[in-house]
């Protein structure tokens, strides 16, 4: 057996590492973490959090894959269908991840343990809910010490959430540039003056920043901290985060289907065609590209196990996530991703967090009413659209919106028509090089057509 290598992002914590072996993620626990790991199990914390579906369950394996002397045991955690990164989440997803972290912190303290780090990368979405995946984040609690991850929690959860609340929900994308958290120094510049009048913002951001700037690192004697103090900070953070709300906004996209141009008959006809195909073809995973408010993602969710619903509109994704949470829809994973600017690979050697395109392999892609936005809105040639879609999926449900369509006419109103080849004939010809066209149906009384295609081998 070949020795395994750690996952490119799993190098920070000496307690162990994650590795990929035959398509599955495993976690090695090192000898130096043995006591903490046993405490996690023996305190009952692991069982409780797993039972509550807050922590990823695992099975222990007595197999030293790495053949390392530091090996203590190997964990095979329950696998996550689709890995997403915090900068692909919406406000409510990051907020729920922050609340989960705080809940786990409080439970850990009750069990004589504490979280030694607090980054949103410790969390993934599984069945529509956030789940804590870093089993090695727990350590025994020394109640004379404050929370070592307090700064990290503030910078990687509180700051981005506050920027959403006080500025705009798109600010979450800053986590892509600052994956270790948005520095307090920058946060204090970027947050508006009025935010200082909120006691919690003042304490956790502005005061912390000031103290951090003034303090020197070699202050020797420090008075002991206490469990009571730590719990009061945790409770305060919990009520602070719980109270964060976005201001309601109206974007170009969040009322798209309510517009009169796209009448009810069109939407109903389109839905019945798509649902018919979904019934016909058994698929497990679906990508709904340009999901808008998730009308078709919801329809797809009744036929597939996982629907990754992406859109570039932060408000649409947030509403869809909140809707899924309220209605108990566990199949849809809404993500804030622009198909024209998909998430790149980031981190050390560009290997830590993989790009969206390389993570995304699905059985079916729904590309409904986006082709004109790509070709005419963004100048992406039809050929490139077809090639990219063929790398993602086997089945494709795509809607062609021709130049005669009122939406396309609007798009071409203020610019030169440099798209002489944007016709349904050219579309069919170009897509036929990568896909076999199985069906073609005109939608309602519009000029738009729906195509069901299958990738050619």
């Amino acid at each position, binding site marked *: 057996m070949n020795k395994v290598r750690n996952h490119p992002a799993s190098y920070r914590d000496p307690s162990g590492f994650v590795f990929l072996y035959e398509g599955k993620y495993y976690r090695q626990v090192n000898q130096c973490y043995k006591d903490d790991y046993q405490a996690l199990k023996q305190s009952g914390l692991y069982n409780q959090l797993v039972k509550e579906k807050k922590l990823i369950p695992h099975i222990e394996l007595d197999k030293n894959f790495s053949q390392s002397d530091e090996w203590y045991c190997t964990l095979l955690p329950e696998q996550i269908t689709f890995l997403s990164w915090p900068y692909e989440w919406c406000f409510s997803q990051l907020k729920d991840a922050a609340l989960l972290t705080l809940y786990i912190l409080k439970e850990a303290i009750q069990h004589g343990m504490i979280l030694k780090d607090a980054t949103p990368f410790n969390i993934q979405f599984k069945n529509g809910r956030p789940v804590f995946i870093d089993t090695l984040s727990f350590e025994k609690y020394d109640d004379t010490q404050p929370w070592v991850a*307090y700064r990290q929690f503030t910078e990687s959860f509180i700051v981005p959430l506050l920027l959403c609340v006080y500025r705009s929900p798109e600010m979450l994308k800053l986590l892509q540039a600052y994956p270790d958290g948005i520095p307090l120094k920058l946060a204090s510049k970027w947050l508006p003056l009025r935010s200082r009048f909120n006691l919690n913002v003042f304490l956790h951001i502005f005061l912390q920043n000031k103290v951090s700037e003034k303090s020197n690192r070699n202050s020797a004697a420090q008075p002991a901290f206490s469990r009571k103090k730590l719990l009061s900070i945790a409770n*305060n953070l919990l009520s602070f985060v719980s109270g964060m709300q976005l201001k309601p906004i109206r974007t170009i996209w969040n009322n798209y289907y309510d517009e009169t141009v796209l009448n009810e008959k069109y939407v109903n006809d389109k839905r019945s065609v798509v649902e018919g195909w979904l019934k016909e073809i058994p698929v497990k995973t679906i990508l709904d590209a340009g999901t808008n408010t998730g009308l078709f993602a919801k329809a797809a969710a009744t036929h597939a196990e996982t629907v990754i619903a992406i859109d570039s509109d932060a408000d649409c994704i947030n509403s869809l996530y909140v809707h899924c949470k309220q209605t108990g829809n566990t199949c849809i994973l809404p993500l804030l991703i622009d198909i024209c600017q998909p998430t790149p690979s980031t981190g050390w050697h560009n290997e830590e967090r993989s790009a969206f395109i390389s993570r995304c392999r699905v059985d079916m892609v729904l590309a409904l009413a986006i082709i004109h936005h790509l070709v005419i809105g963004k100048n992406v040639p039809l050929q490139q659209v077809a090639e990219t879609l063929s790398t993602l999926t086997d089945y494709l449900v795509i809607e062609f919106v021709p130049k005669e369509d009122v939406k396309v006419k609007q798009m071409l109103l203020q610019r030169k028509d440099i798209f002489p080849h944007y016709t349904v004939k050219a579309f069919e010809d170009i897509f036929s090089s990568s896909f076999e066209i199985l069906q073609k149906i005109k939608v309602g009384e519009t000029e738009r057509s729906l195509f069901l295609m299958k990738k050619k081998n």
Partner: protein
Amino acid sequence: MNITAYIDPGSGSYLVQMIIAGILGIAFYFKTIWATIKSFFGGRKEIPKDKEKNE
């Protein structure tokens, strides 16, 4: 600060947590007094915080 930590707790992180815990303690103290005064004058009894409204 805990020197076994593998992440940098950040400079002044210990001090700021002491200060914040202190301020929260004082705020709690005044809240309790205020609640006692209100209930003494027959005001609305302090209702325990609604049980975490499932977020």
